[in-house]
């Protein structure tokens, strides 16, 4: 039935074509760009909200500062020289000679003198293989 009537002009005529001006490509690019930027910002908002929630669970700065100090003090440094250690021992002597520690110094000196006397009474052993000649 449809095929027999194909030749007649029962099909309503379509409106005449009216060419449109070409789509504004820069606007399309701009829209996609704006959409991408908005999506990026939405992701950033999500990350920030997560971080705000997690901040309450992290330790205070003093814990981290302690870790830094402990690490530094536990490791030697070739650029912080032995002379710094000498200066530290000089400070120890100044501390020892201070008024509050005079007693400790006296006791230490007496003990050292006793040890020296004891060593002087006992001759030092000499190890010499048979056949060795004196220099």
């Amino acid at each position, binding site marked *: 039935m449809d095929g027999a009537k194909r030749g007649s002009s029962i099909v309503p005529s379509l409106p005449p074509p009216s060419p449109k001006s070409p789509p504004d490509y820069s606007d399309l690019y701009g829209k996609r760009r704006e959409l991408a930027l908005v999506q990026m910002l939405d992701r950033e908002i999500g990350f920030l909200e997560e971080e705000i929630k997690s901040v309450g669970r992290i330790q205070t*700065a003093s814990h981290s500062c302690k870790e830094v100090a402990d690490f530094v003090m536990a490791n030697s440094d070739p650029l912080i020289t032995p002379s710094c250690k000498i200066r530290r021992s000089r400070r120890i002597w100044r501390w020892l000679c201070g008024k509050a520690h005079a007693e400790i110094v006296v006791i230490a000196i007496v003990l050292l003198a006793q040890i020296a006397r004891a060593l002087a009474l006992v001759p030092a052993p000499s190890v010499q293989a048979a056949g060795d000649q004196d220099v």
Partner: protein
Amino acid sequence: MSVNELKERHIEATDTVNSLRERLQQKRLLLLDTDVADYAKSHGKTAVTFGPTDLVCCRTLQGHSGKVYSLDWTPEKNRIVSASQDGRLIVWNSLTSQKTHAIKLPCAWVMTCAFSPSGQSVACGGLDSVCSIFNLNTPTDKDGNVPASKMLSGHKGYVSSCQYVPDEDTHLITSSGDQTCILWDVTTGLRTSVFGGEFQSGHTGDVLSISINGSNSRMFVSGSCDTTARLWDSRVASRAVRTFHGHEGDVNSVKFFPDGNRFGTGSDDGSCRLFDIRTGHQLQVYNQRHADNDIPPVTSIAFSISGRLLFAGYANGDCYVWDTLLAKMVLNLGSLHNSHEGRISCLGLSADGSALCTGSWDTNLKIWAFGGHRRVI
């Protein structure tokens, strides 16, 4: 949504982001109960002191005819590679001052160089936006030049910094003026991952510096012209693990602290800072004191092997040695005899921590070490 609606949404989202950042900053401030210096002082620590001969310049490496922009030590032996405005890479024996290689680069505008972990290759990059790899065992061509063994192309801006992944000659990371960092497979020459970029959650300005964590080589930090430093996990390129705010100018240099849980930064704002990667806290600020308001930018930083000393090079030729615990400047290498005559552009510690090398716009490199056992040359 129409373009206008999207633009409005963009403005609202930007306001929301700024507001959330402000809230986050306020919450973080409540957790900053002390800094490293106050903690150290309260626990009886006193500053390191240096005598006049404790740290001296024991070698001056002369040979470049242009500004030195970058240097790197080998991980084991005492060799240094340097990159200069004269368009050459030079490989030096730091003990004898001899040059073992002088590589003329295809592009003279080099900004960075790095030794591979094995010491067999060097990488460099610059305004050509390419990271070039040179094998030091390759014989020179008929013109006496060493041809590049690989050219890593893909950045859309200059290559500002490069570093090999520790113990992996096959992977390195670059940073770029195109706002991204890239992890490369050197064998194939292909990009494994791109960190940041347009429409990605990454830096919003040129990336100037990177540092890979020596204790966990999957983690690295980057510093940028957007005034932030960012921590990345190389397995997750889509977003930074954390963003560190605080600086008020370009972050020119970043370097991990030896324990791998902190890192330092140096900035155009003239300050260095110490950040904690696990908590995000800013633990310490190392601020210069200047009579006038003209505070020179920090160009480069490095930590001593124990972390007790922070070396910072400045644009005015100063090279401060900071006591990291007490936040005090304990020595200025720039004021010593035989110091550089120009801006310090780069510096780095030897692998065993016994020597510091500085590079300068005066075309020289200098090596600094404990003066007790060496004769000053």
